[in-house]
């Protein structure tokens, strides 16, 4: 495990190697070498199972972090490969030739985050949404509550309470603030 990570660090210049949990290690890799790294892990190191692939939106740093989660059934170890891409130039190399389900994930990311995957099959088809005319919904700047109120409208009389405020004011007015 250690050897492998060291070798990867040498060959692929991976950074931020963190052992997150037992059997889960994550690291960052540059966008250009991501596909080669994944291919290497799949073919040489036995990380044959793509658990999933997803994206985290760090709007404050102006990046999308793509996460590829690979699993090795023999070593019972999972690797989380993080790839940072810029929010302005949101394109990523497609890995649909490596795993058969990868194009589905890429189609979802294309729809939910607007990330482009050139060459990925059916990537521009609708996945979950239909006739979507807003910015991709999973981006942090998309306010789903506001959108829902505008588009669908709420029935008059519906109230939603923030539980903290409700408990403090209505249920336990004498307890005061029990900040922990």
């Amino acid at each position, binding site marked *: 495990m250690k050897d492998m990570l060291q070798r990867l660090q040498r060959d692929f210049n991976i950074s931020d190697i963190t052992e997150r949990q037992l059997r889960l290690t994550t690291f960052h890799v540059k966008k250009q070498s991501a596909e080669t790294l994944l291919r290497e892990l799949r073919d040489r190191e036995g990380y044959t199972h793509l658990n999933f692939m997803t994206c985290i939106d760090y709007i404050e740093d102006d990046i999308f972090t793509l996460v590829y989660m690979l699993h090795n059934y023999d070593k019972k170890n999972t690797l989380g490969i993080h790839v940072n891409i810029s929010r302005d130039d949101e394109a990523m190399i497609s890995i649909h030739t490596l795993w058969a389900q990868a194009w589905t994930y890429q189609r979802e990311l294309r729809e939910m985050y607007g990330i482009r995957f050139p060459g990925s099959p059916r990537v521009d088809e609708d996945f979950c949404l*239909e*006739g979507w005319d*807003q910015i991709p919904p999973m981006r942090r700047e998309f306010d*789903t509550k506001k959108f829902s109120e505008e588009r*669908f409208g709420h*029935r008059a009389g519906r109230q*939603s309470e923030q539980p903290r405020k409700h408990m403090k004011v209505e249920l336990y007015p004498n307890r005061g603030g029990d900040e922990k």
Partner: protein
Amino acid sequence: MFKKTLNTEDTLKNSGLTDEEQQLFSNARPQAYEPYPIKAVEDFANWARANSLWILAFGTGCGAIELRPLMTARFDANRFGVAGRPTPRQSSVFVIGGYASVKTLKRIIRSYEQMQGPKFVIALGICPVNGGMYFDSYNTVNQFDQYLPVDLYITGCMPRPEVLVAGIMELQKKIKAGECNGANLYVENFDWYKSNQKKVIKNWDMPDYNW
């Protein structure tokens, strides 16, 4: 009987269709169903309708999971004349299983309009009333009755099969009393419903009324 294309002023625009498709679909407005002139006949018809409720097999949301126990051996809704029917043409009850996402809503409308009247809509859970748990979701509608008329709401998440049975009996009561006129409401306020539907369904590529 053969009212394929009526060349009157009061036709539907079918603007979502291409010119070629326009020829294939009817542009006539739906018509309200007048009750039979003799009251006894209408009452008898309502009695028959109430005792033979055929539910369209379309699990639109999580509510569909309790329809299986309802139809099978434990609760056996067949006793009340309820049966599942796989095609909209033959069914008379549409069960909205909770939330309706925008993509499903389009299919719900299509299926509902294909059903032949008199037809009834039951909505399960709180989600069709005001969005429920998904009040802030970008993909589920909050007030289902803006898009289709609902005859009966059954509460709970999930509504238990017992509640469903009670709801069906309530629906039967309403039908027998002649109070279930959701389908007529839909026809009378057709333009309002349509404009609401088109407000949320952005890629409207079907005829305005699916015969």
